[in-house]
């Protein structure tokens, strides 16, 4: 639904008014104030997007409307008016009659969002029986109707399925059916697509939009993704530290951004159209602690335009024409200009790294090519890392007493090369085998067949003993720094450990090296004495990078390096990674499901689908003139953080969900979701064939240059 239609079928009535809502949660002897004086409004038939980072209070606002604050939480002030009825202070029994009936909630998909031991039909039917007093049979019929409406194929047969029998996208459809089965007037969708792949996300969001207009509901879309907001919300509320920084109609807010935080947030999102030579804008620091009440604008400590007044006085909401409200003492004029800070080729060793700020610019946006950097520091003349027909199969589930084992074909014959100093990006949806591949690259896992050749030596065939010293040169940075840093070790010990294992230096030298590493990743030396849980997510990810760099590796594999981070922190880490890559002449492989992240970091890109590389090329080639329909579909599915951005035609979208890697389709593995598939695609597997010298695609019907996105 575009924003224009959304307002067209509105009958103008206000459905929900939130005034000065404040929430506090008592946790032990600490009091957290996640929502502080929030005012928002929602009209009938409209979608309100609440956007913000972790801890901004966006989810808590949604839960407060549902009357489902966590234990120890209560509303301390304000009112929530739903169609003339005050929800704050409503007795529990009357609130229950509203929940699931007038107001429903769609949660983020997780494996446990549906009861694992109940059939989905029963779960969808439950609210109908509860609120409408329907008989078992009526409720079941209604559940079937609802499952058909959310696009579950053959719903009558699926009623008796258990949740684990469905894919992630299908589970989320069931969740939506469950929320909408009583045709509520308001549905609150809390990060409804965050756990889903980008192609599935696009389908689920379109479904929600479609149902909202068909059932005449209003929707609150809670998300961290500005792109989702730009594409799907009529009105936006931007939250920061429990307060609404800015709210207004979507197009108005994006076109005439007023609050400094919104502006900074929008600038720090890596986009698919941004000049890759520019450094990403990043907001310094981290969001404030919600247990302390501080005077002034909560964003002031991180704001470039903050003055003494911002630090002393809380800015009041200011209403402008068109219902655009902001709370900023020094409002900005429109969207931020890009930073124009160029990434610089590092000067020879010894010079201080340049963080940000305008510096001597290169003539074009192009980055130093791999060959330029390969000359320095590399001894071998060939590629530093060569992957030859790599395959990995895992046994799938229980094997029968008799009969063959079924296997998950995680990686099925992947070959590529990474030159010295080059960054290779691997993109693909979850389950495409990109992480399995990454683990094999650094010899954390052995392939079923094929080889990884590092500086001319096949690491995949080395004995564990021979591999030991080699590991110094192959390092990995993990996604979840919370899980990959030992919670009982101080950061100093974590950074010294790789050095100690390899027997580098004395204890004092190792500590000195650890301090140096921390400085390189922009952390103060005091962090040495801290434990991982004392650091923020962004700081932990910096430590993860420092640890990977401790042994001065030649190859760095980063698996989803920023996926767990908030937007404002993400750009800090991305800039840091890119700087480190350039400074050290590292060969790196960046693995991510996020196409914009890979575009920002990588020189060359490989697109994976179900264990195979379907397209490789330089970043400009793959993003600029995608030749594989899958790549084009992925690019089309990403919502740009710009309501005016052209929508990809629906036909270009990738439909459905990936088939099981246990039984991949014959021929081209993508053919089951491809609009262009022909009989040939089912019979013959397309090999990787060159489009240009550096651009290869595995497709029988590659897209011509004129068809693809430019």
């Amino acid at each position, binding site marked *: 639904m575009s924003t224009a239609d959304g307002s067209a079928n509105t009958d103008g009535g206000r459905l929900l008014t939130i005034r000065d809502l404040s929430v506090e949660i008592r946790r032990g002897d600490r009091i957290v104030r996640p929502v502080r004086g929030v005012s928002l409004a929602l009209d009938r038939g409209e979608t309100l997007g609440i956007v913000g980072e972790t801890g901004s209070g966006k989810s808590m606002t949604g839960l407060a409307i*549902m009357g*489902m604050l966590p234990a120890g939480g209560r509303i301390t002030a304000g009112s929530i008016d739903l169609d003339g009825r005050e929800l704050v202070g409503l007795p529990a*029994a009357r609130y*229950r*009659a*509203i*929940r*699931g*009936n007038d107001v*429903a*909630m769609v*949660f*983020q998909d*997780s494996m*446990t*969002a*549906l*009861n*694992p*031991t*109940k059939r989905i039909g029963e779960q969808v039917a*439950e*609210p109908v029986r*509860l*609120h409408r007093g329907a008989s078992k049979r009526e409720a079941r019929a209604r559940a079937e109707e609802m499952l058909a409406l959310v696009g579950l194929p053959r719903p009558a047969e699926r009623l008796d399925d*258990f949740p*684990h*029998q469905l894919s992630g996208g299908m589970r989320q459809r069931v*969740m939506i059916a*469950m*929320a909408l089965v009583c045709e509520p007037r308001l549905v609150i969708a809390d990060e409804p697509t965050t756990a889903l792949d980008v192609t599935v996300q696009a389908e689920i969001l379109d479904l929600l939009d479609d149902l909202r207009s068909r059932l005449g509901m209003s929707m609150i879309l809670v998300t961290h993704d500005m792109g989702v907001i730009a594409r799907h919300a009529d009105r936006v509320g931007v939250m920061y530290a429990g307060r609404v920084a800015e709210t207004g109609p979507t197009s108005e807010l994006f076109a005439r951004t007023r609050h400094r935080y919104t502006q900074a947030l929008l600038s720090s999102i890596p986009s698919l159209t941004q000049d890759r030579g520019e450094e990403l804008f990043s907001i310094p620091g981290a969001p404030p602690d919600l247990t302390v009440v501080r005077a002034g604008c909560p964003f002031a400590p991180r704001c470039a335009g903050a003055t003494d007044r911002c630090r002393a006085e809380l800015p009041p909401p200011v209403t402008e024409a068109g219902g655009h409200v902001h709370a900023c003492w020094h409002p900005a004029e429109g969207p931020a200009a890009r930073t124009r800070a160029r990434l610089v080729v590092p000067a020879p060793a010894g010079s201080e790294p340049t963080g940000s700020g305008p510096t001597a610019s290169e003539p074009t946006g192009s980055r130093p090519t791999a060959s330029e950097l390969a000359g320095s520091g590399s001894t071998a003349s060939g590629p530093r890392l060569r992957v030859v027909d790599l395959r990995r199969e895992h046994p799938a*589930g*229980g094997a*029968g*007493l008799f009969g063959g084992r079924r296997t998950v074909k995680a990686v099925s014959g992947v070959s590529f090369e990474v030159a010295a100093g080059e960054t290779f990006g691997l993109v693909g949806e979850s389950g495409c085998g990109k992480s399995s591949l990454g683990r094999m690259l650094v010899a954390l896992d052995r392939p079923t067949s094929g080889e990884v050749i590092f500086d001319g030596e096949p690491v995949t065939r080395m004995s564990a003993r021979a591999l030991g010293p080699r590991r110094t040169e192959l390092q990995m940075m993990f996604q979840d720094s919370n899980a990959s840093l030992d919670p009982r070790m101080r950061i100093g010990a974590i950074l010294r450990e790789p050095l100690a294992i390899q027997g580098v230096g004395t204890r004092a030298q190792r500590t000195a090296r650890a301090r140096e590493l921390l400085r390189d990743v922009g952390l103060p030396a005091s962090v040495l004495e801290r434990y991982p849980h004392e650091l923020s997510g962004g700081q932990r990810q910096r430590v993860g990078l420092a640890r990977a760099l401790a042994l001065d590796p030649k190859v760095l594999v980063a698996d989803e390096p920023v996926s767990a981070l908030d937007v404002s922190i993400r750009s800090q880490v991305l800039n840091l990674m890119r700087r480190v890559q350039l400074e050290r002449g590292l060969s790196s492989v960046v693995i991510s499901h996020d196409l914009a992240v890979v575009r920002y970091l990588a020189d060359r890109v490989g697109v994976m689908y179900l264990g195979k590389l379907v397209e490789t090329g330089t970043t400009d080639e793959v993003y600029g003139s995608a030749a594989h329909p899958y790549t084009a579909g992925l690019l089309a599915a990403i919502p740009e953080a710009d309501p005016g951005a052209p929508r990809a035609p629906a036909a270009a979208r990738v439909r459905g969900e990936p088939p099981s890697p246990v039984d991949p389709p014959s021929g081209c593995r993508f053919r089951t979701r491809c609009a262009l598939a022909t009989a040939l695609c089912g019979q013959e597997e397309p090999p990787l064939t060159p489009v240009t010298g550096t651009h290869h695609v595995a497709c029988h019907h590659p897209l011509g240059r004129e068809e693809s996105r430019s």
Partner: protein
Amino acid sequence: MTWYVLRRLAVSLLVLLGISAVVFLMLHLVSDSPGRVVLGQRASPEAVADFNREHGFDRPVVAQYVGYLGRLLQGDLGRSYKLNEDVGTLLARNAGRSAMVSLAGLVLALLIAVPLGILQAVRRNSVVDRVATAASYVLYATPSFLLGLLLIAVFSQTIPIFPAEASQSHSPWVVFTDPRAMALPVITLAVTSIAVFAQYQRSAALDQLGQDYIRVARAKGLPERLILTRHLLRNACLPLVMLVGTLVPTLLAGNLIVESLFNYPGLGLLFLNSLQREDYPVLLAYTLIGGVLTVAGNFVADVVVAAADRRIELGA
């Protein structure tokens, strides 16, 4: 599901075969000349050799084992030379009684522990929860013989409500209809289990309460009572079902102490007496029965859990 059950069954049978082999071999090592045991220290070596030959104890171990297996398949567990009775008959007579007291203890323990554990989880860190947790630890750390003796001292000596000795009747029916005589042994058995089960149930329920589907159920507008009975109960009981299955042999071992304490003629008491009499055929059969019960317990637990939670089939 059928395929899964058959597979588990086949695996169980293999395990049992292994157990019988190991037990047979161990007893053979302990006493390779049953004639000496049966006839006593005074018997002449010739008489012992004659006895062994007559009963086939002079053959190689493997042959003896195969013969033993063959008889086992026909339901022949051997013969107690000391009591001059079929081991099968002997066990059958005692097993019914043991099973009854174990089962009564188990059911009592579950009836108390499951609701208690869930209550503790729902009211986490409340006074109820803290008291129940503390009591569980104390009871868990109390050896069952001590607990039994204390119960006898209080409820049989000081306040004579229950008899100190369990029912001696050979008819399960009489035992069943005389709850007063069985009260103390059953309570002794149950108390230790309650302590373990309640803590287990509490942590399982806490685990489930944190899952998203509980929040989803709340968002549907379900009252808390229905959330507990419709959504939480089943999921929260799965780990306990698994535990109870694996506890079956422990219950038998518990019987050993409780049965001797209350002089209740069950399997445990039989085992103890046979141990003193060096009655190897009985010991062999008892150990094998223990193995069968363990394997059967695990098998039943697996099947019940798989039936309740359909994800298991894929993962197992």
